[in-house]
């Protein structure tokens, strides 16, 4: 196991949509080479907070983010930061698999292409191959890289999306309920994959399944009504939570 270091540090983050105060003073630290899970009932702000980490909330006009989010010590909301560059370093995988209606190869090669990461065709081929390997889908698609990505099964599509995200060589991988549209077998494959990805990336995953959080994460944050109620080692959160709300949620009494 690689040594863990501080990757992202969020301090006093507040998010407003028009009049809604969606995130209330959340502070969190995300370590490299580990999986951090955000859990909580629907509408608690966990996805919103996740989307702050790669500034995807910028695409929503009414959304306002205050507070500091530092990636490797640099403020990602600094006016000098180009969100486009940031998103190449902080990859994202969505709830519903969303491959481009293009070939598998083009899906994975898109990021490296627009960021100019490959020197030539063979270089790009290698990047695509590596990304597909790391996403544990290479063996399934190596013979049909030119087939459309949309023709695969849901679980395969999601792994293509993960491959696509890691092809730009990000440091952090954000996953917004990546398994909620998948069947149990595909979910198990993705979970196994997330555990492997931990070796190279800081993974942040939003999940509705507490079992999933318990299985794959090292750190867990529990969100409720826009506040981060509790944040700590997964083991501790699930066995000995400090806050009564956390306990209620994980034992199924609220949420």
């Amino acid at each position, binding site marked *: 196991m690689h040594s863990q270091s501080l990757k992202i540090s969020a301090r006093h983050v507040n998010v407003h949509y028009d009049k809604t105060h969606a995130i209330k003073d959340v502070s969190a630290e995300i370590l490299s080479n580990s999986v951090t899970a955000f859990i909580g009932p629907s509408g608690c702000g966990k996805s919103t907070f996740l989307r702050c980490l790669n500034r995807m909330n910028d695409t929503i006009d009414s959304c306002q983010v205050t507070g500091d989010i530092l990636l490797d010590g640099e403020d990602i909301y600094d006016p000098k930061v180009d969100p486009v560059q940031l998103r190449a370093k902080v990859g994202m995988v969505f709830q519903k698999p969303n491959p481009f209606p293009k070939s598998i190869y083009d899906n994975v090669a898109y990021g490296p292409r*627009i960021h100019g990461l490959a020197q030539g065709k063979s270089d790009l081929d290698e990047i695509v191959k590596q990304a597909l390997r790391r996403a544990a889908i290479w063996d399934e698609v190596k013979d049909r890289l030119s087939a459309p990505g949309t023709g695969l099964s849901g679980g395969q599509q999601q792994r293509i999306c993960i491959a696509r995200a890691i092809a730009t060589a990000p440091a952090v991988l954000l996953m917004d309920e990546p398994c909620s549209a998948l069947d149990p077998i595909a979910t198990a494959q993705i979970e196994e994959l997330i555990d492997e990805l931990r070796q190279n990336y800081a993974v942040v995953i939003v999940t509705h399944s507490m079992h999933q959080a318990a299985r794959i994460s090292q750190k867990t944050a529990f969100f409720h009504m826009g506040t981060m109620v509790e944040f700590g080692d997964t083991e501790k959160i699930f066995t000995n939570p400090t806050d009564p709300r956390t306990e209620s949620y994980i034992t199924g009494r609220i949420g």
Partner: protein
Amino acid sequence: MTDLKTDKSLYATTAHSKRRSAAEKRFHRLGLAAILIGLCMLGILMTTIVTKGSGAFQQSFATLDIDLLEAKLDKTGNRDPEDLKKVTTFGYAPLIKAAVEQVVETHRIETGLKSKDMAAIISKSAAAQMRYRVLDDPSLIGTTAEFKFLTNSWIDGYLKGRVTRETIGNNKNVSVEQLDFVDRLVGLGIVEKSFNMQFIFGADASDQRPEDAGIGVAMVGSLAMMCVVLLLALPIGVAASVYLEEFAPKNRLTDIIAVNIANLAAVPSIVFGILGLAIFINTLHFPQSAPLVGGLVLTLMTLPTIIISTRAALEAVPPSIRSAALALGASKMQTTFHHVLPLAAPGILTGTILGLAQALGETAPLLLIGMIGYVATNMPETVTQGLLSPNSAMPAQIYEWAKRADPAFYERAWGGIIILLIFLITMNIIAVTLRRRFERRW
């Protein structure tokens, strides 16, 4: 659970269920009737158009051998093009008369007609047709050449059944003797009906020569206008929609703009015509009746259609595709041009083709910029001419023909409608095919 109220046999019917199924059946039948009425109307329309218009694609021709006498056509004998041009169509007319007399003599046709009236069955365009051919090829002078002349529209009408011995009465344009004479010529194979290329590719003709009129020049005018519309409306429309849909902030102002674009689509087309007259002709002094101006006016008219369909196509692209690209670090423009636009392209194309088809059939705005009433007799020779010199357009030409008194023009109006419809149907088929072929399966 025998105490439940609904404990009845599945086979039992109640007054309520009977009423309900009767209502279903009634609605079913009404819908079917509506469809049948629609189909009937379409059938009637199509049959009428085809029966009335198909005549225009056939035309009666008289094939005559003409002695191109040097004494008449080139008195100096040196084939100087300038001298040849001095001989007007009046110089050629006697040759036709002579050729007809020749036919009467060889075949011993009994007729009480004077030779002038016999020659009158040939179209007035015949002399000009000969003159052009001789000017093109002066070596024909002094020889006997075969010419295929159009017949007069009354004779043509007689052979098509439009004009009968009973209906001509004391019509000054045609007499019963002439019809007898034509019958003999038909028997001899000198006059016969054949396919009329002239109608499709030819130019419009003056009131006196309906047999010579064609829709070709107006077609070129329409095509020139369509090029202008395509080159202007597509880029402007797509740029406007992409901006509104992908880049503009969603606020009251953009809402107002969107609503007003939708309103523009419902503005009567003649309003665009008068706008074009005021701006392009009166203020900017563009040439009147020019396809360029027509194209600009139709562009104004088509833009809202294209913008609306393009916005719909962009809206139909799932937001997940945009998120995917943005999350990979694509800029907004890269997202739009690499992913959103290609996915919306079939919808945009379909909308554009339908907009073009609508513009192609539009008549009212052309009225105000002088494209209706212009007799399009000259085929433009260059692209600039095609855009700037006065021309007509297909629907304008049809309207013009329908307006003229001679029933022969009426037939041509119907024929023109067939050609216009063929264009429109082709465009619609292309649009439907594109939509089918590229329809996205997310």
